[in-house]
């Protein structure tokens, strides 16, 4: 941990769904510029954590401080406006619009506070910026393709590109490589993490793939039954017996069972 003041402080977060505990005394300090990998077996509470930070779910107890503001009680759109964006495990894009229209819509909303929503959506500064974003995430080739015709990898890139046009300080990625082919996943992560590092965005991402975790993150947070059981560097975390048993071990078994 360095001495920089944390950008995000999560304290004593609790959430249960009936008898299932999805978050139990979750505490986390995130420093600007960190890239944190969130790991854990299915049902360990990773997505619940992301959903609470982004306002989709409200915690039963605890606090989420972002840049000194309390986020508990915020709706997703308020969290986005405050400066935290997210991508989705299953890409949430506008499937009957083109790639360009998707990014333009995201950009126009981000750049139109209040009554600016009545300004034309097609304006030169937005159109230019839109093409920059497409180039940055290397989806210019698909500019005029309808989203429903695209591969998972391109959809994931689009989903993330739409999340960053609001220039968030923190981006939460929910399994950015799920559904992406083995050949594509490192290319995808190179593009995404490269762009986010350049913009100095703090990243928290959920990932099942330990190769990806080792390669891209500076810190690993492991969840098990709604609790954080490990918060270390990637090397330390992967060597941690608890992580091996509850995260990696369980996954290996599950994969073996699934055949």
């Amino acid at each position, binding site marked *: 941990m360095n001495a920089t003041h944390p950008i995000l402080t999560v304290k004593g977060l609790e959430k249960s769904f009936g008898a299932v505990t999805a978050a139990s005394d979750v505490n986390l300090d995130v420093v600007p510029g960190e890239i944190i990998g969130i790991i854990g077996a299915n049902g360990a509470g990773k997505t619940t954590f992301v959903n609470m930070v982004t306002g989709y779910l409200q915690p039963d107890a605890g606090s989420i401080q972002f840049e000194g503001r309390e986020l508990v009680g915020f709706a997703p759109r308020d969290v986005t406006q405050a400066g935290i964006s997210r991508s989705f495990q299953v890409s949430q*894009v*506008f499937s*009957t619009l083109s790639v360009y229209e998707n990014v333009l819509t995201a950009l126009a909303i981000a750049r139109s506070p209040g009554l600016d929503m009545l300004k034309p959506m097609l304006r030169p500064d937005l159109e230019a910026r839109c093409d920059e974003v497409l180039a940055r995430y290397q989806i210019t080739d698909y500019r005029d393709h309808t989203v429903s015709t695209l591969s998972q990898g391109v959809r994931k890139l689009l989903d993330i590109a739409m999340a960053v046009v609001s220039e968030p300080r923190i981006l939460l990625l929910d399994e950015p490589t799920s559904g992406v082919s083995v050949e594509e996943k490192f290319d995808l992560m190179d593009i995404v993490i490269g762009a986010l590092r350049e913009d100095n965005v703090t990243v928290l991402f959920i990932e099942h793939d330990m190769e990806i975790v080792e390669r891209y993150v500076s810190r690993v947070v492991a969840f098990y039954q709604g609790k954080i059981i490990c918060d270390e560097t990637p090397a330390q975390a992967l060597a941690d017996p608890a992580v091996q048993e509850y995260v990696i071990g369980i996954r290996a078994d599950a994969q073996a069972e699934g055949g």
Partner: protein
Amino acid sequence: MLKDRTVQVVFAGMLASIVLGYFIPDWVMNQLMFGFSRALAVLGLMVLWRTGLVSFGHAFYYGLGAYAVALLDIYLGVSDAFVRLAAAVVVAGGVGWLAGFILRNYRDIFFAMLSLALSMVLYGILVKTEALGSTDGFAVSVPTFFGYKPEGKYALFVLICVVGAFSAAGVQFYLNSTLGKLTTAIRDNEVRVEYLGYSVAQAIHVKYVISTCLTGAAGAMTAMALGQVDPDSMVNWTASGELVFVTILSGPGSVIAPFIGSTVFELLRTYAFELVPHAWQLIVGGTLLTIILFLPGGVWSLVERFMGTGKKT
């Protein structure tokens, strides 16, 4: 905004109609007046339809607009066309704004039917209340314009053309804005729109209020053009159905479409009635069937096709 081709066509059409209106026989002018008046309501339904929302109860706002004019006339003796129009828009828009807080949370069939429920409540009240004209409604006196009381209906026709053109231009401006362009996006993925930082409920509420204001204006214009209001032709569910009918007939492609579609409907109904007085609905229904089967983009797609080939040659 004046660079917009659609807006140019709208104002050119307005001027052409006003000039033409001076020479055409009264019965043709009447048809155009009813057509253009109703077109405002259709324009309002189009704003909703583009986001995938259909209201089967817009006669509610049509009736509110029409009855605002009639009641002002009967009880307060207000005859000024501008005051009547403004009152109708305020009443319909105000009620639409209030109802919007409920309706914005519903989609699909629930949205459609909730609107219908509201309109049937109003219908029930009107029919049962003697002070509100009961089933007969009211006659509406000839409108005046800033104290000027013109002979014939030409002045009202001009007003309808001007209001129609400015409404169409306004809607065009809205549809090009970021807020107005949140149509397909909302239909495709509401969750994403929320995560991009905008409230879907608010976007729909704005659409709804725009739509109710336009429909109130349509009711007011029709009341003045017709010289009467009555619950059966203006507030009953059949009136709502008729508005949806004309919306489908027109097509959602352009803000000009409602004016063409609504005029076509007016002529269609008149001629069908003349041809087969007892089964005119058959012709109107058959037309709707044909449109849905062969012209899902409405009458407007014919215009587009015509202009498209016109450009190429």
